[in-house]
């Protein structure tokens, strides 16, 4: 299982692995927002937590189809499904690899982009914490969506349609936590809810995703 994690990390960081694309997308989205809403500092400060959360969510969504589609194309998924490790673990490990290559870098980049959006001082801590604890849920929910559509030729758009509604609770609690933090309000409750969603997603969704993959390989 460590081998699978290392392989996925290695593939993501090699040429054509897409590592960095998500980050670049996150950067561009964040830069585009002031062009859309105007440069006024107060407005930007108010919407910064939401923009950064939505941006991170979309950047995470972009790379989801790589989780299983490439392995499906080259036959690795068939072989992994007949390998001695359970498919549920394969899903969990691949989702973890996805988080390490997208969610974690996004979390680390977010404070820097928050400077561009004029995020108030106390918001930085809560933004980073909420992203760090919430983006794993995005990867695991996304892995489930990717598993549902792995057998489809052009499943990318459909996958977005399936995954985005599932992202809503994560987004609500995550952005709310960051927003309350930025407004110097108590942000503990949404953070706890966010952690609950992440833990639930990590615990349950690999089973659903593995079931979907088995159906798709049939």
């Amino acid at each position, binding site marked *: 299982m460590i081998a699978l994690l290392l392989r996925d990390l290695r593939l993501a960081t090699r040429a054509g692995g897409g590592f960095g694309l998500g980050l670049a997308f996150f950067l561009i989205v964040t830069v585009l927002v002031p062009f859309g809403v105007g440069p006024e500092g107060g407005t930007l400060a108010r919407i910064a937590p939401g923009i950064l959360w939505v941006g991170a969510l979309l950047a995470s969504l972009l790379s989801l189809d790589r989780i299983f589609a490439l392995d499906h194309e080259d036959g690795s998924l068939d072989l992994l499904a007949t390998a001695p490790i359970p498919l549920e673990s394969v899903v969990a490990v691949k989702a973890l690899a996805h988080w390490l290559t997208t969610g974690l870098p996004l979390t680390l980049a977010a404070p820097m982009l928050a400077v561009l959006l004029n995020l108030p001082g106390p918001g930085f801590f809560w933004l980073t914490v909420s992203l760090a604890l919430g983006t794993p849920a995005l990867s695991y929910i996304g892995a489930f969506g990717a598993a549902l559509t792995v057998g489809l030729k052009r499943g990318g758009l459909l996958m977005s*349609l399936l995954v985005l509604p599932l992202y809503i609770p994560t987004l609500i609690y995550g952005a709310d936590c960051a927003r309350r933090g930025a407004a110097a309000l108590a942000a503990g409750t949404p953070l706890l809810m966010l952690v609950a969603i992440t833990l639930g997603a990590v615990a349950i969704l690999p089973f659903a995703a593995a079931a979907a993959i088995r159906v798709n390989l049939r």
Partner: protein
Amino acid sequence: MSIWEYANPRKFMQTSAWALPWVAGLAVVTLLTGLVWGFFFTVDDYRQGATVKILFVHVPAALMAVNSWLMMLVCSLIWLIRRHHVSALAAKAAAPVGVTMTLIALFTGAIWGQPMWGTWWAWDPRLTSFLILFLFYLGYIALWEAIEDPDTAADLTSVLCLVGSIFALLSRYAVNFWNQGLHQGASLSLAPGERMAMAFKLPLYVAMAGFVLLFVTLVLIRTRTEIRARRLRALEARGRMA
């Protein structure tokens, strides 16, 4: 005699062919009674005027929007556990009906909301929940459409329905939390229940029963269509092999 006998497509077709005219007729009668009673034989609300009467469409549609998803959830579970094809097809058949009910609820809500709150749309928890439900319906229907093999599609949509139900429920609570978080104490509530007079309640119940019967009628028709489509598929496959 077990209820699972109706899971056999042939038996289901026979029974539903017999039941359909009765259910459909009853649906028309109940619906007309409820709506005519509600629209023309109730007094105008002292504050809301005649506008309030849209609730005779709005509330039953909202009820069926949620119940349709619940029915799909139950059918998906039955399919995953007992592999009854009719169950999977009934879930497939209910989805477009459910999404239509959701749209009706959203649109009548907007039409009602405009004169009452002065806005077509507010990010009220209840409205938002229905919008999210609409998105879940869209995803579910799109997944059915995208997959060619019917059993694969049934399996995957069932899994999506299960996971989607959990997340829809989570969204429901998240939205409540979120809106409170935004505007303290703001409460735009559509709830018609609290102070409603019996004169409104009775026709509303009849209209609700009418919508339930309408839903059953539509789902029966659509399930029969899906079964026929599957039968056609099977016959074609058999023809190719012969």
